[in-house]
C-alpha cells in the first residue's frame, strides 16, 4: 500500500507541474547527452592514442643529391644509436608506392607526381617516442639530411583538437547541469508547497522522514532517468547522423563508435542523472521542509 501511495504521488507530482517537468527533463537530457558524448570521446581518444602512438615513426628525409657514402654513414650511425629501436630505409620506388597507396582516391595527384620526385628516407621507431627532440638535434645538421618529421607531432595536434572538443562538451554538460539542478530544486519547492498541508499533517502525526521525502525525491529521480533516456537517444541520433552524413569523412581518422560503446554510456548517464537529481531534491527538502 505504501509503495503504491508513494508511486502515485510521484506521478501526480510530475503531472501537476508538467511544463516545469518538461523543462527539467530537457535540461537534464542535454546535460547528460553532453556528458555521455564527452565520456565517449575520452574513451575514444584513449583508444586512438594507444593505437597511433604504437605505430608512430620519425622520418628522416634525405636530400635529392645525397651521396651513397652519406647515406651509408647515416644508416650505420642510426643503427648504433641507443635511442633508436628500429630503422628501415625507404628508397624512391618504395616511397612512390606508399604515396600511391595513400592517395589512391586522388588519381590526379598521383599522376602528377613522378617516382623520382619523392625523396628517399629513413623511417625510425624510437625506444621512447618522447625523445624525438634529441634525435632531431642530433641529425638535423648531418650531411645529406633534408628534413626530419615526427608523426607524433601531427598526432598531438589531432588529439589536441579532440581533447578540446571533449572539454567543450564537458563544459556544456556542467553548465547545463547547473541549470538542471536549479530547475530540479525549483520543481521540488513548488511540489512541496502544493503539498504543504499534507506535509504538515504528516509531520504532526509522526510520519517518518523518509516517507515524507520519498515522493519528492523519487519525482526528481524519475525526471533524471527520463532525461538520461533522452540523452541516450540523442547520442544514438548523433551516431546515425555521423554514419550517414558529413562526419563520415572522419571515419578513417577516428576509430568508429560502436553501438555497444553508446549503450555502455547509459549506466553512467542514468546514474549521474538519477543521483544528482536525488541529492538536489533531498537537499532542497532539508532546507524547505526542515524534516
Amino acid at each position: 500500500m505504501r509503495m503504491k501511495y508513494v508511486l502515485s504521488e510521484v506521478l501526480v507530482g510530475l503531472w501537476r507541474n508538467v511544463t516545469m517537468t518538461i523543462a527539467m527533463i530537457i535540461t537534464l537530457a542535454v546535460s547528460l547527452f553532453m556528458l555521455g558524448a564527452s565520456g565517449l570521446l575520452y574513451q575514444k581518444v584513449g583508444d586512438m592514442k594507444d593505437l597511433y602512438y604504437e605505430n608512430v615513426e620519425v622520418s628522416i628525409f634525405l636530400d635529392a643529391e645525397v651521396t651513397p657514402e652519406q647515406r651509408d654513414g647515416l644508416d650505420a650511425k642510426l643503427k648504433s644509436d641507443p635511442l633508436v629501436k628500429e630503422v628501415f630505409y625507404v628508397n624512391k620506388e618504395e616511397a612512390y608506392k606508399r604515396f600511391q597507396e595513400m592517395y589512391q582516391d586522388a588519381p590526379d595527384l598521383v599522376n602528377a607526381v613522378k617516382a623520382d620526385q619523392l625523396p628517399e628516407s629513413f623511417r625510425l621507431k624510437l625506444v621512447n617516442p618522447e625523445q624525438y627532440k634529441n634525435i632531431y638535434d642530433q641529425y638535423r645538421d648531418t650531411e645529406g639530411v633534408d628534413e626530419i618529421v615526427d608523426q607524433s607531432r601531427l598526432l598531438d595536434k589531432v588529439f589536441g583538437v579532440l581533447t578540446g572538443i571533449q572539454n567543450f562538451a564537458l563544459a556544456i554538460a556542467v553548465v547545463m547541469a547547473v541549470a538542471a539542478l536549479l530547475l530540479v530544486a525549483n520543481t521540488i519547492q513548488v511540489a512541496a508547497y502544493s503539498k504543504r498541508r499534507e506535509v504538515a499533517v504528516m509531520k504532526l502525526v509522526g510520519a517518518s522522514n523518509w516517507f515524507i521525502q520519498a515522493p519528492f525525491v523519487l519525482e526528481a529521480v524519475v525526471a533524471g532517468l527520463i532525461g538520461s533516456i533522452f540523452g541516450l537517444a540523442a547520442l544514438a541520433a548523433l551516431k546515425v547522423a555521423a554514419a550517414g552524413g558529413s562526419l563520415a569523412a572522419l571515419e578513417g581518422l577516428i576509430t568508429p563508435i560502436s553501438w555497444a560503446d553508446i549503450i555502455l554510456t547509459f549506466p553512467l548517464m542514468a546514474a549521474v542523472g538519477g543521483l544528482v537529481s536525488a541529492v538536489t531534491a533531498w537537499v532542497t527538502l532539508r532546507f524547505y521542509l526542515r524534516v
Partner: protein
Amino acid sequence: MIQLEQVTKTYPKASRPSLDNVSVSIEKGEFVFFIGPSGSGKSTIIKLLLHEVTPNKGRVIVNSKDVTSMRSWKRPHFRRSIGCVFQDFRLLPNRTAYENVAFALEVIGKTKAVARRVVPEVLELVGLGGKEHRYPHELSGGEQQRVAVARAFVNRPLILLADEPTGNLDPDTSIEIMRLLDRINRTGTTVVMVTHDSNIVNQMRRRVIEIESGRIVRDQARGVYG
C-alpha cells in the same frame, strides 16, 4: 507523564524569554488548562511538548522520554504517542472526513484494512456517524473540529494536546467539543489544553495553570479563569 523542569525558552531575536524558568508536573490522566493573555508563552509549551522547539535551559520530559536531548530523527516516532488539535482544524480540504482520519493512519504505516476497521469507530465516537464522506467545506466548524479530534485520537495517543481548540467556534459548539475532550480524558488520555476561553475553563472546573509573561502565576487544582 509530562514534566517541565526549570524550562527557559527564548526565541532568537526576542527581547525577553517566552518561558522563564517554568516547572510543571502533569500526571497521567489529568486534564490541564494553560491560560493567559496572548503572547504569555502558552503556545510555546505545546511546541516544547511536540519537540517542535527545544528549550534553552531546563528539561522537558514527555512519556518518560527526555525530549530535550532527543535526536530529530526520533521525533516522528515520538509524535505518534501524542495527538494534536488546533484552532484552525488543519484538515486536508480535498479529502473527506473518513479520508482525513485514515490519512493520519496510513502515513504512519497502518494498512487500509486497519483504517477501515478503526476510522468509522472513532468517527462514531466523536459524533460524526453518517457524515464520513462529507468534505470539510460541507461540515460546520464544530464538525470540522470533531474530525480533527478524531484524527488526533485515532491512534490512541497517551497525550492529547489542544491549542485553543474552541477559538474559532461559537459558545454552544465549544461546549460540545469540550464534552468530547472530557470523554477522551475519561478513557485515560492526558489532555493538555491551551485556551483563553474563560467560559469553558469556569464550567469544566479542572486544573488551571495561569501563565503571564513566561512565568507561572497560578496553579490551581479545580480552578476558574480568575
